[in-house]
């Protein structure tokens, strides 16, 4: 079956972007030169763009697009003396260029913020409702991607799908809001976005109804106590990690005013479980690895019927200690299979 698409020169596409910017804030992975962790390295992360040339599509972004709908620092309300006021959001809608894995990841964020418990997250929801996805076609795997194993490789949940090539873009426009923009300037072509079919990295996610208690104290985690440095890069780069902490602060310039805000938190980072009074849980870094791993590939699924992890592999990309999460999943699977055998 043929699927009608459009093909545009970058320059024409940029004109449409310009048009769209009147109504939308447009986010895509872009290059922040020499802003990488190491000197003379660049940072690829999401930012507002003005042209297609700014979009970095040949590399994987270091951070996911989650910060667009789940800002790193987000003011919940301003305090003036003892009153409070919830900040407004920008009137514009939002377009995000992102890959299938991240679109699938956003579904996990939706689940947590909108479907876990009786309350919807007010702040998440009001941003999320503005978002339309432009899916960046992702045919070939980057290093560390294991989306296929996690079913993160495919989605049809997009307004537009786009294939970037040097100098031109090819689009599949599903959203009626956008169709009118393209049929004037775009050449009509037959286009169905393709998807990654196989990654270099494959994981076998254990299929268990119940995680045996022995797994929690299994010595496989001890290794990570030695290796993990609790930096939290895996958490912050993950498209599905959604934890946060609230902070109340008085302004230095006028301590009578202040705000309550939330900032990202991460289960690997010290302080995540600290309670007033000093008690805390999972002091061993290995137990944090276990906590995260089981969350991503076991307990979230028990609750919501799909695994949390979408296999974007950013945790592996970013870990300064070369801890491979995909390897960890496979190790866990192997351990579980051996445990099973032992029981037989």
């Amino acid at each position, binding site marked *: 079956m043929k699927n009608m698409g459009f093909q545009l020169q970058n320059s024409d596409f940029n004109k449409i972007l310009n048009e769209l910017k009147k109504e939308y804030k447009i986010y895509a992975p872009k290059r922040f030169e020499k802003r990488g962790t190491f000197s003379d390295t660049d940072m690829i992360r999401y930012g507002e763009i003005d042209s297609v040339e700014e979009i970095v599509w040949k590399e994987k972004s270091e951070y996911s697009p989650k910060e667009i709908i789940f800002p790193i620092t987000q003011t919940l309300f301003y305090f003036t003396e003892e009153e*409070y006021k919830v900040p407004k959001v920008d009137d514009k809608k939002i377009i995000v260029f992102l890959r299938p894995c991240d679109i699938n990841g956003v579904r996990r964020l939706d689940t947590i913020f909108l479907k876990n418990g009786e309350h919807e*997250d*007010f702040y998440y929801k009001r941003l999320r409702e503005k978002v339309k996805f432009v899916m960046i076609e992702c045919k070939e795997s980057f290093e560390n991607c294991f989306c296929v194993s996690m079913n993160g490789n495919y989605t049809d949940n997009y307004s537009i799908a786009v294939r970037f090539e040097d100098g031109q873009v090819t689009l599949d426009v599903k959203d009626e809001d956008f169709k009118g923009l393209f049929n004037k300037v775009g050449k009509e072509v037959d286009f169905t976005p393709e998807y990654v079919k196989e990654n270099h990295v494959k994981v076998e996610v254990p299929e268990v109804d119940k995680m045996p208690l022995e797994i929690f104290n299994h010595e496989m985690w001890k290794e990570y106590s030695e290796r993990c440095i609790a930096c939290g890069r895996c958490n912050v780069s993950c498209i599905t990690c959604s934890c*946060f902490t609230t902070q109340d602060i008085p302004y230095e310039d006028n301590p009578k005013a202040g705000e309550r805000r*939330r900032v990202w938190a991460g289960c690997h980072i010290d302080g995540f479980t600290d309670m007033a009074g000093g008690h*805390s*849980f999972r002091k061993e870094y290995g137990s944090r690895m276990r906590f995260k791993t089981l*969350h991503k590939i076991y307990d*979230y699924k028990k609750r919501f019927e799909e695994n949390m992890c979408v296999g974007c592999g950013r945790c592996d990309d970013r870990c300064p200690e070369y801890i491979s999460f995909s390897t960890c999943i496979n190790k866990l699977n192997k351990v579980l299979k051996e445990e099973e055998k032992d029981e037989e």
Partner: protein
Amino acid sequence: MKNNPYLPEKMKILDVIPQTDIDITYRVETDMKPKNGQFVQVSIPKIGEAPISVSDFGDGYIEMTIRKVGRLTNEVYTLKPGDSLFIRGPYGNGFPIEKYKGKHLIIAAGGTGLAPVKSIVNHFYRNLDELKKFDLLTGFKSPKDILFKDEIEKWSKRFNTILTVDKGTDDWNGNVGLITEYVPKVEIEDMDNVEVVIVGPPLMMKFTAQAFMQRGVPKEKIWVSFERKMSCAIGKCGHCKIDETYVCLEGPVFNYTKAENLID
């Protein structure tokens, strides 16, 4: 804004009742009708927010017994009647007290663990006939840490109340020793009709539950309440999650069959 669950309600402090050097009970004005064992998110603007058990409630008020352990609670300590606290909630499941009616209820509370169960104790203090039998074991580190002294005194007149301290002082004439040591002293006549509520620090709950199980109390008859870090109390922030369980949503009260498998 109605659908913004993060918005607290400003509530007036009606009464401030010192309990120990570092524990104070605040009574605030509210229409809230919590269940026994639920908690609220208490905050002071620009200082912070924290989950606090509702230690008692009644018409037009709730009470929280707050221990001075951090930045927020330090600040709370400066408040006087007439001042306000910002509160949202109640959250969590609470104890299934309907299930306890007609049974032999044993409550074992360690330290501040007495706060979340205080409303149950008071309920049955007022309605002692709803139970077949009622025993309260409560332990504190030392005599000066004893919470709700007057009420314990009051309670002990109506049902078996064992008060113990881990370490006595020269002028302490009461029981000394961990709660676990007093578990064997509770008389349990009908093992099928007993319900045990245990609240306190994690290790206290674990060993007390073991002590009751050793006596033959089945897991299904044991209930505990968990304390965890929480930022949202509504299942978003992730801090209180244990495995697939959100303490703020499915807790803080758990039957021990579930609790024993919740591994941090």
